[in-house]
C-alpha cells in the first residue's frame, strides 16, 4: 500500500488551508482594515424594520468610519422586500453601497416569492444572491462577524 509522502501531504494540507482562507478573506477584502465586522439581518415584513436596519448600518459607518467597519446586510423571508429594485429606500441603499456596505439576497426566498408573484422579483443592482440567507449569516458568524438583528 502506498501512502502520500509527508511533503505531498503537507502540500495538500497547505492548499486546503489556503483555499479556505481565500474563501474567508474574500468577504473581508473589501474592508481589509476593518476593525469590526457586522452582519445585519432583516427578515421582517414590518416596513419600519427596513428603515431601522438602514439606520443601524448608517450609524455604524458614521461611528467607526467607512474603512474601519465592514457591514453586510442579509435579507431573507419577508425582509427581502428591502432589496426590491423599486423599494422606496433605494437611494439610501445606493448611498450605503457606495460606502462599502454589501447586500445579500436569499435565493430560497427569491424562489418562493417568484412562485407567489408568477415572475421573479426584480432586485436592486446592489443585491448579491446567496443560496440561503441563514446559511450566509452562519458563515459570516463563523468568520467572526457579529450578528445584529435590529
Amino acid at each position, binding site marked *: 500500500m502506498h501512502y502520500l509522502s509527508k511533503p505531498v501531504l503537507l502540500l495538500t494540507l497547505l492548499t486546503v488551508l489556503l483555499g479556505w482562507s481565500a474563501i474567508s478573506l474574500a468577504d473581508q477584502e473589501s474592508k481589509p482594515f476593518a476593525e469590526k465586522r457586522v452582519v445585519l439581518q432583516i427578515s421582517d*415584513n*414590518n*416596513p419600519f424594520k*427596513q*428603515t431601522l436596519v438602514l439606520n443601524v448600518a448608517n450609524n455604524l459607518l458614521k461611528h467607526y468610519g467607512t474603512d474601519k467597519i465592514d457591514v453586510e446586510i442579509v435579507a431573507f423571508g*419577508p425582509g427581502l*422586500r*428591502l432589496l*426590491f429594485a*423599486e*423599494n*422606496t*429606500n433605494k437611494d439610501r441603499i445606493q448611498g450605503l453601497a457606495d460606502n462599502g456596505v454589501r447586500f445579500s439576497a436569499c435565493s430560497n426566498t427569491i424562489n418562493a*416569492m417568484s412562485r*407567489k*408573484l408568477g415572475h421573479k*422579483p426584480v432586485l436592486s443592482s446592489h443585491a448579491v444572491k446567496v443560496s440561503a440567507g441563514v446559511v450566509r449569516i452562519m458563515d459570516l458568524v463563523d468568520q467572526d462577524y457579529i450578528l445584529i438583528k435590529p
Partner: protein
Amino acid sequence: MTNRTPNLRNTLLLAILSAGFLGSESQAANWLMLQGTEPAGAAPRAKLWGFIQPEYQQTDGALLAAGPWKGQSAIFNQIGPDLKSESTFQIRRARIGIRGTGMPLDSNVNYFFLAEAGNNAITRQGGGSVRLTDASITFNHLPGARIRVGQFKYPGSEEGLQAIHVFDYINFTNASNQLLLERFFDGDGSDKQNPNRPNGAFRDVGVQLFDTFRRSGWEHSYAAMIGNGNGIVRADNDDNKDLYLYWSSEQVYGGKGPRRQGLKLSAWWQDGKRTLTGAGAGEYDRNRWGAALTFRKQQWRAAAEYIAADGMIFNGTDGGAVPGSVNNAGTAVASFNVAPEGEADGWYVHLGYAVTPEWELDARYDVLNRMTDVSAQERKLETLTLGAQYFMNKKSRLIVNYEVRDAEAPGLAGSAVPNQILADIDDRISVQLLAIF
C-alpha cells in the same frame, strides 16, 4: 365695521396664553403621491390609521340688523354645520381608514379607504350619517402614468388637496369654502331648498392619471382626472363629466412626507357642468381654476393662492338668515342660493414661523369677491386669521385661531340693507385639538 367685543378678546388671550407655538407641517408636500400611493417595497398589507378633531368655536352671535329677517340669527354668526348656536363644542372630524398594498410583494397595486363620522358638512348635509370620503385603488404598472380609480380628492387647489390633518388652520378660507367646497342643490334657491347631498369635500368619483418626475433637484407632478362632478358616494346625475388638470413643480430642499421642505408652484383647471332640476332648471357650466405657491424652509412657512370661478357660485342665503327661518312677515322661508351663471374669485396669503420645535405662529389674510359680474349682488368677504399651534408630539397638536372678519356689498351704498346686515359679521374664535393614530 366689525364687532370686537371684550368677551372674545379675553377668550382669545386666555387661549393663546394656555396654548403655544409649534411647527407647521403642511406646505410643499407632494399630495398626489402621499394620498394616492404607498411606499414601494415598504408598505404594509393594511395600515389602520385615522384622526380625531374635537373643537370649540364661538362668535358673539350678533343678530341680523336689517332686512326681512331682522332680529333673527345671522347664518354667518352661527357655527356650522348645525347653525343653531353661536358657540359650540363638537367633534369636527373623526376619521378612520385603512391603506396599503393588499399584496406586499406587489407594489403596483395600492388602495386607500377612509370614512368620516364627525359633525360637519360631509355627514350632516343631505341626511346625517357616517360617510365614505375615500375609496380608491391605484395602479402603478405604467412608467410615468399611474392610474387611480374610485372616490378621492381631485387634483386642484393647494388648500383643498392637502391633507386636512396637517392643515395649519381650523377653518378654510372664504374662497375655498364657498367656491370649491361644493354644495349640491336641486335649484337656484328661488324655492326653499337645502343641500341635497353631502358637501363635495374636494372630492369626486372617477379616474385619474398622474405621476411625478425628478429632474435636477426639481420634482414635477401632473394629474388629469375625469369625474362625475356630482359629489361623493353617489352616481352621476347627467351625462356630463368634470375634467381636472393639474401641474406642480417643486424645488425640494429636504425632508419627506407632509413635512418636506421646498418651494412649490402649482396650477390647476376644472371644467364641468351641473344640472338643476328645481327652480332655474337647466344645465350650467361650472369652471374653476387657480395657481398657488407654497414655501417651507427651516422655521419659515408661506403660501399664496389665487382661485377663480365661473358658474354655479354659492350665493349665501336669503337675507343672511339661517335656512329654514321664516321671515318676520311670515311670507317666506330663508333658503340657500346658487347663482348658476355668476362669477367670483378669491385669494389668500399665509405666513408661519416656528418659534420653537413645539410652537408656531401663523397669520393668513384671505379675500373672496363673490358675484363680481353683477354689481348689486357683489359681496366681498375678508378675513384675517391669527393662529397659534402647539405640538405635544408628532401626532397631537392644539390649534387656536382668531378670525377678524369683514364683509360688504361694494356695489351698494353703505346704508343699503345688505351692508347693514354684513356690518354685523362677528369675529370668530376657534380652538381645536388633533390626535392622529
